[in-house]
């Protein structure tokens, strides 16, 4: 200020610096903004109120410590501290450099900061010497904050655009792609260079579609999820939905922002679903098995042709019914109970064979496979029922069962023991005759044979696993000609012939065997009887021949010449033959005494009545007694005919017998009495005939013989021990 006072200034034009320094303080304060001046050394020489307000302080003027700026501290916008000596004002004072719209951060002594927009001009004298500088600055903090927010929002938008999961692009009014985000590029497989700058039309498959899209957009219409097809770089077609709106400025179409949503996967899934549904529908209708869908109460929701045909009912009719309606009442409860359990989720599915009523009243047998369709929460949605008409199969099964029953009845009725086994030999069936023969009911798990124990014909034990049935099964062949003996639990034995025969299914696989056991007890007995009979016959023939031999020899020895021999031998042979005849008639069991007497004696008595008297109870003679008695009676009769009462016409013969007790034993007593014949004399010599009688009665029969040579007639008493009541 001293300079101002020293120099006369009246005629000299003031420099800008001098003028500003000289200006009244009010002038500086009137300036709308903060202003301060520094001299050529940088000292603050003037500042206005606004500057002091922004600085938050009032620095002293012309103080060498207050140089270049009145602020407390300075920073660059990035926060770097800025020394006052390096600030733009210092540059202006030292180098004359002006600063235009530079921003620095001013910190007040209280720590608060503001951004100052700084404009500096160096002030020079007339010769161009730097006299100082003026700094006009203003607080632009609020503006800067707004600017930062706008920037951040722009960045957010940019980021959103670029990193959005959906494809985005912007097309200008010429239809050229000006921007496209990553998702859009990835969707189609192009790089930014290959996509951006090209016509959007080039990427659309359907020209009409993009034409329409662009037309609409140019008119300001919005597009919402318009379906379109885009061609990807690899040639594949992408199904997309385009959502788009136009930006119109001043009534002029500027560009359009498009959102491209990739629907390809969804589209493919949809195609697959449709195909599968079509396939299912085709199957549903073409199936030869019935298919129905029903709700939880059994109402039919859908039925196929096969089911309609099966039930003889129209689709329209069935769709008004529940599946219980056509079910036979006898099967309804069971089906309903199972379906209820299925709808509640207690069971997933079930199978039932039931009778169904056709429209014509006939009955169909159906095999039903019922299952459920459930939603993702396992809740019942509807029942799916697959039905097969098994009426024919059922009939065939019934026929088979009937024929099986028939066969069983047949087997049951057979008088032979019959049983069957499975392929492993376990008994599966046996008839009553088998139980009778085995003397037991076969136990569960019995194998090979119904019998209790088995023996071979020689009596050695035969294990069941080696029996003919076991062989038939193990070797898969019928066994014939075997013989075995079954022992019953009560110890009795039955000889039998088994007829084990393997059974095969239609494929020829062994499924078991059937065995018939034929009881041959009677045959065995008959065989044994026959053998005995043959032995006995042989024995008798040989003995008879020996007897004949003896008779011939003895008769020859005592005969009076050949004629006598022939007569006597013939008579003895005939007596023997008659006894044989009688015995043969009764199977050699016995011969009646009266007939024997009649047969042997009568021929000697002639045809005349009254000469032979016979009397006695019926008595049966066994073979031995009959033969011996026949021989004895023959000798007596021969003698009577030659010497006794039968030798003349007046003579008579009485043969009487009775069964009497003697010393506690029963005896047959037979009395031979001759009358009215020639006078009987004692025989001169004992003949062979008498000898033979004695042999027959005494020696062979253990009997007694008494001969009384009464002159009136021969009397003979024969006593033979009885072997039973009326049997001798």
């Amino acid at each position, binding site marked *: 200020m001293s300079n101002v006072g020293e120099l006369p200034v009246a005629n000299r034009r003031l420099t800008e610096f001098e003028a500003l320094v000289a200006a009244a303080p009010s002038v500086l304060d009137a300036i709308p903004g903060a202003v301060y001046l520094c001299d050529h050394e940088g000292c603050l020489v003037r500042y206005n109120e606004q500057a002091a307000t922004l600085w938050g302080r009032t620095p002293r003027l012309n103080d060498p410590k207050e140089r270049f700026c009145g602020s407390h501290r300075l920073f660059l916008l990035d926060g770097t501290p800025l020394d006052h000596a390096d600030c733009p004002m210092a540059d202006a004072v030292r180098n004359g450099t002006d600063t235009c719209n530079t921003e620095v951060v001013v910190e007040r002594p209280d720590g608060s900061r503001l951004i100052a927009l700084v404009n500096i001009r160096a002030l020079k004298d007339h010769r161009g010497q730097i006299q100082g500088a003026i700094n006009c600055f203003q607080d632009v903090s609020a503006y800067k904050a707004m600017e930062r927010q706008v920037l951040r929002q722009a960045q957010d938008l940019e980021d959103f655009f670029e990193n959005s999961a959906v494809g985005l692009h912007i097309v200008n009014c010429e239809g050229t792609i000006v921007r496209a985000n990553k998702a859009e590029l990835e969707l189609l497989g192009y790089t930014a260079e290959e996509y951006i700058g090209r016509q959007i039309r080039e990427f659309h498959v359907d020209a009409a579609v993009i034409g329409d899209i662009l037309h609409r957009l140019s008119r300001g219409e919005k597009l919402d999820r318009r379906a379109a097809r885009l061609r990807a770089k690899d040639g594949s077609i992408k199904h997309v939905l385009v959502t788009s709106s136009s930006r119109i400025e001043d009534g002029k179409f500027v560009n359009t922002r498009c959102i491209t949503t990739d629907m390809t996967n969804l589209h493919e899934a949809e195609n697959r679903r449709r195909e599968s549904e079509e396939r299912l529908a085709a199957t549903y209708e073409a199936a030869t098995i019935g298919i129905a869908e029903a709700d939880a109460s059994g109402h039919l929701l859908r039925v196929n042709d096969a089911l309609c045909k099966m039930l003889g009912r129209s689709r329209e009719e069935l769709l008004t019914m529940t599946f219980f309606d056509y079910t036979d009442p006898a099967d309804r409860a069971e089906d309903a109970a199972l379906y209820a359990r299925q709808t509640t989720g207690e069971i997933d599915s079930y199978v039932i064979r039931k009778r169904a009523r056709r429209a014509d009243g006939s009955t169909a047998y159906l095999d039903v496979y019922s299952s459920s369709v459930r939603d993702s929460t396992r809740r019942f949605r509807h029942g799916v029922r697959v039905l097969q008409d098994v009426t024919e199969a059922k009939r065939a099964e019934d026929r088979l069962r009937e024929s099986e029953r028939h066969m069983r009845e047949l087997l049951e009725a057979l008088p032979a023991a019959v049983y069957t086994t499975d392929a492993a030999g376990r008994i599966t069936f046996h008839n009553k005759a088998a139980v009778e023969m085995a003397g037991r009911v076969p136990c569960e798990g019995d194998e090979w044979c119904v019998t209790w124990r088995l023996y071979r014909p020689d009596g050695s034990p035969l294990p069941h696993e080696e029996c003919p049935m076991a062989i038939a099964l193990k070797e898969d062949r019928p066994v014939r000609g075997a013989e075995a003996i079954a022992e019953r639990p009560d110890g009795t034995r039955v000889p039998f012939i088994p007829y084990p025969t393997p059974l095969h299914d239609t494929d020829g696989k062994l499924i078991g065997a059937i065995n018939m056991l034929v009881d041959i007890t009677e045959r065995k007995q008959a065989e044994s009887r026959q053998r005995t009979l043959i*032995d006995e016959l*042989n*024995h*008798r*023939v*040989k*003995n008879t*021949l*020996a*007897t*004949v*031999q*003896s*008779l011939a*020899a*003895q008769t020859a*020895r005592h005969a009076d010449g050949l004629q006598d021999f022939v007569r006597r031998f013939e008579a003895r042979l005939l007596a023997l033959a008659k006894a044989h005849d009688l015995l043969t008639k009764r199977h050699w069991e016995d011969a009646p005494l009266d007939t024997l007497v009649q047969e042997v004696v009568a021929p000697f008595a002639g045809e005349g009545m009254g000469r032979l008297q016979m009397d006695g109870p019926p008595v049966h003679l066994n073979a*031995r007694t009959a033969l*011996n008695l026949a*021989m004895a009676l023959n000798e007596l009769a021969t003698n009577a005919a030659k010497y006794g009462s039968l030798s003349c016409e007046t003579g008579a013969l009485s043969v009487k017998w009775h069964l009497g007790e003697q010393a506690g034993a029963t005896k047959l007593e037979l009395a031979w009495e001759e009358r009215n014949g020639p006078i009987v004399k004692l025989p001169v010599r004992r003949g062979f005939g008498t*000898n*033979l009688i004695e*042999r*027959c009665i005494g*020696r*062979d029969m*253990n009997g007694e013989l008494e001969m009384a040579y009464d002159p009136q007639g021969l009397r003979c008493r024969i006593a033979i021990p009885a072997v039973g009541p009326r049997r001798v």
Partner: protein
Amino acid sequence: MNALRGLKVLVVEDEGSVALLIEDMLQELGCEVVASVARLNPACEIAAFADLDLALLDVNLAGTLVFPVARILQERRVSFVFSTGYGASGLPDEFRNHVTVSKPFSIEDLARAIAAARLDPGEPYSPKKA
């Protein structure tokens, strides 16, 4: 024939007429018939106690078999000959190989059988080891 002279013989034969023939044959061969019986019991008694050189045994005595007599004779080492209508097949194992004369037979058959029995009186039977 002389070899048989004086032999004391027991005849067991259930049929009287056949016994008569046999007795005649034996007498013709010079034998002495000590007894001729038709039943088992008297036959056993005589076989056990009588002074015998030989016995002729009918196998079947009215349904009873003569073998008890044969065993007694075997014990006493008395020769015997079976006479039978059955042939050898009717004999049990113990006598399977014994001398047998099959009815009807001639006097020569009888003489041969007696001679054979005299040569081989037969050991008491002992069952072969099983």
